[in-house]
């Protein structure tokens, strides 16, 4: 009995001693190991050289401890499942192996955190880190957000009145549009989906130019070739909107490759919604961008809806931000209704993308307050009170207004003046655009190729001859 006690006490002593030693010297390594298992962080330059350098030194420390007590060994085995001194060599690099079969969970214990600077009342969250904006920039950002909101409501009304055929609003995503544009330079190439007219607005596209495109008149720099909201402007480095979903994502990667080859200090940015991430193009583009190491920002506007498809029917991952690391792309999640958070994140992303020649994925969580387009009535598939709550309580424009007002940069007189002025300008722009002539017949045949081919020249000639022969059938509002 006594013998037993002695041995047991000795083993207890050893156990305790070992445990304490382990805890003191290797506690850091314990946590290190624990975090090492689900490794989603992009490898730093050091890691790439020898990812297990840190690993092995701690391994040796631990293995010497083992011989002190079997109890410790058991403890250890339950904590540390990998046999560090044995790694497997496979194409792609070394991996430690584990005798335990453990599946990586399909859903995380906790969702990826969302970066936010302003609270719901537009007040700075204490200890929040963000990029400072000057009064001038902040006021321009706010004015453009108001302009975008007003432009949307006027065009929407015009469509309902039958004056334009189609429109899609950006309500609820004004912060995404303007703040992201403000954080870029005009040298950066923009590849939009179709809910980012604010980026073009920030860069100087006028209200009249927006109206001309929506009315498809002769002053439209798109020559009346496309439906409303398919804006494009070389001058502003904003590539023409195409209706195909997510095709712009690999385009942006290709253009970023071109910038990289030119050694230009600029990046490409591409926008897409939560729905667009289901397209094959999205996956190919992210994979490629990581492999080719190009300066591109992937900006996902996760607004909860792809027409009537909610995100729960679109994917089962924790949003889009977790897809970045799957392709080796550094990613961040931001509050899409927080102007300062978006501004800061895009600014940082641009610097990283250009200086390190790497892609960045930004997921902005927001809500599509408006219908998908004028062809949609979203009250058919989602509750009205949900829409209204996001429209009022979570309005990004009002939230940013509170912040600039608290800085003394804005007041209600400025607000009234701005809104009435913009509305007046918009109504005037629509009137002018409506009265303007449609594009001339010649523009039917140009731009198919660089040089008009002979068959189209011939057809244009025949058309003009026919028009001359039958002048009464010629439509008066179609210029020749």
């Amino acid at each position, binding site marked *: 009995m006594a013998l037993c006690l002695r041995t047991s006490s000795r083993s207890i002593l050893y156990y305790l001693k070992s445990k304490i030693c382990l805890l003191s010297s290797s506690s850091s390594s314990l946590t290190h190991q624990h975090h090492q298992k689900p490794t989603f962080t992009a490898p730093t330059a050091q890691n790439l050289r020898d990812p297990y350098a840190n690993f092995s030194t701690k391994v040796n420390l631990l293995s010497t401890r083992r011989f002190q007590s079997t109890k410790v060994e058991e403890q250890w085995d339950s904590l540390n499942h990998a046999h560090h001194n044995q790694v497997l060599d496979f194409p792609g690099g070394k991996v430690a192996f584990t005798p335990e079969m453990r599946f990586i969970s399909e859903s995380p214990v906790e969702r990826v955190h969302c970066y936010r600077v302003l609270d719901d009342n537009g007040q700075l969250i204490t200890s929040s880190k963000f990029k400072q904006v000057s009064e001038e920039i902040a006021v321009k950002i706010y004015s453009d957000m108001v302009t975008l909101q007003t432009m949307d409501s006027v065009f929407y009304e015009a469509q309902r009145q039958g004056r334009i055929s189609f429109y899609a609003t950006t309500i609820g995503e004004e912060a995404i549009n303007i703040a992201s544009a403000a954080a870029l330079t005009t040298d950066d190439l923009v*590849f939009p989906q179709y809910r980012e007219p604010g980026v073009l607005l920030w860069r100087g596209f006028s209200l009249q130019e927006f109206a001309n495109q929506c009315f498809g008149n002769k002053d439209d720099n798109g020559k009346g070739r496309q439906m409303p909201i398919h804006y494009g402007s070389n001058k502003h480095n904003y590539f023409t909107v195409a209706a*195909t979903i997510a095709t712009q994502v690999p385009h942006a990667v290709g253009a970023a490759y071109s910038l990289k080859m030119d050694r230009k200090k600029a990046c490409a940015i591409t926008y897409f919604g939560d729905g667009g991430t289901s397209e094959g193009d999205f996956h190919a583009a992210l994979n*490629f961008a990581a492999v080719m190491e190009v300066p591109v920002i992937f900006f996902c506007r996760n607004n909860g809806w792809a027409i009537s498809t909610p995100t729960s029917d679109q994917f089962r991952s924790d949003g889009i931000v977790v897809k970045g690391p799957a392709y080796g792309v550094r990613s961040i999640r931001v509050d899409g209704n927080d102007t300062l958070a978006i501004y800061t994140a895009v600014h940082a992303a641009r610097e990283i993308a250009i200086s390190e020649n790497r892609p960045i994925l930004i997921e902005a969580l927001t809500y599509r307050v408006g219908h998908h387009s004028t062809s949609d009535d979203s009250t058919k598939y989602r509750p009205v009170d949900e829409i209204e709550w996001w429209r009022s309580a979570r309005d990004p424009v009002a939230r940013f207004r509170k912040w600039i007002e608290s800085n003394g940069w804005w007041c209600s007189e400025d607000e009234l003046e701005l809104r009435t002025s913009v509305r007046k300008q918009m109504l005037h722009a629509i009137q002018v655009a409506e009265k303007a002539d449609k594009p001339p017949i010649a523009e039917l045949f140009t731009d198919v190729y660089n040089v008009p081919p002979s068959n189209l020249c011939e057809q244009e000639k025949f058309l003009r001859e026919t028009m001359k022969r039958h002048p009464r059938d010629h439509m008066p509002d179609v210029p020749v």
Partner: protein
Amino acid sequence: MLGIIRQKVGAGGASLLRTRSAVSALRSYSSAGKEMTVRDALNSALDEEMSADPKVFLMGEEVGEYQGAYKISKGLLEKYGPERVLDTPITEAGFTGIGVGAAYHGLRPVVEFMTFNFSMQAIDHIINSAAKSNYMSAGQISVPIVFRGPNGAAAGVGAQHSHCYASWYASCPGLKVLTPYSSEDARGLLKAAIRDPDPVVFLENELLYGESFPVSAEVLDSSFCLPIGKAKIEREGKDVTITAFSKMVGYALKAAEILAKEGISAEVINLRTIRPLDRSTINASVRKTNRLITVEEGFPQHGVGAEICTSVVEESFGYLDAPVERITGADVPMPYAANLERLAVPQVEDIVRAAKRACYRSVPMAAAA
């Protein structure tokens, strides 16, 4: 010495033929100059264009380290480096989209499809992002891109590797579609395609890669270029016009030889470009011969022959002395077995029979289905 020669000659028909062909090769060496395989023609064209313009770059599966799935891009990675010869991951949609994006911003990509069958996974980018962009953007976005690769039937590769896409791409405004036959065509048209500001689909043929053709000094010059949209009259004739493109040009020329022995003088037109089709050359030829046979490997419905027939009916109906006949591949997915494959693709005898029908109508058309 005589003894050796006698031995060589006596060794059998095969060696005799070999010595004969060696002699004829020597003959051609001394008169026409060099011969060049289509593979070398394409390789040299790519090399020269990449050297002349730093914006030209090549991307596709296996184009770099592997030297090209069919060795078309041999030596280019070594010469120009990985920035200009990109080995891509396996995603046609991905790398085509990326190529188009690069072209949007001013680079001049040459995108290789391992075969054009795989281009179907990228066809949205070819049509909607490349072909239509200049028009949709009102001239703001030009896409100086070339999509190239082998097209049509090879030998024993089955249905998903033998499809001909000439009529698919040629139906889309905004694209140019080229179909070289000889090494001269390959060099001149590829250079023209790379220099062209519009998106070009360049349809090669796997079985032609290894074939040699004589090339003049002019063709070998680095500034050599062929005009897009101009067909070539490979062989002049006066009794019947035979139009063909790519590999079928060779078959049409062989058929013309056979027909000549029977007193029928066939004019063989190598289309070279499918879009824009050289309607004036075709029509001028038909107005001369009054009879037309079109030859293609692809499927019959909505094919290239259908378009040529319509063009001739529209412009030269009064000149036709016989209905236009089109020789095409069989209206079935390509079978694998060698005997079935042979039946599914046009052969020289089919062209000869059709030409005779056009001239005499002595042999009845194939029995109605």
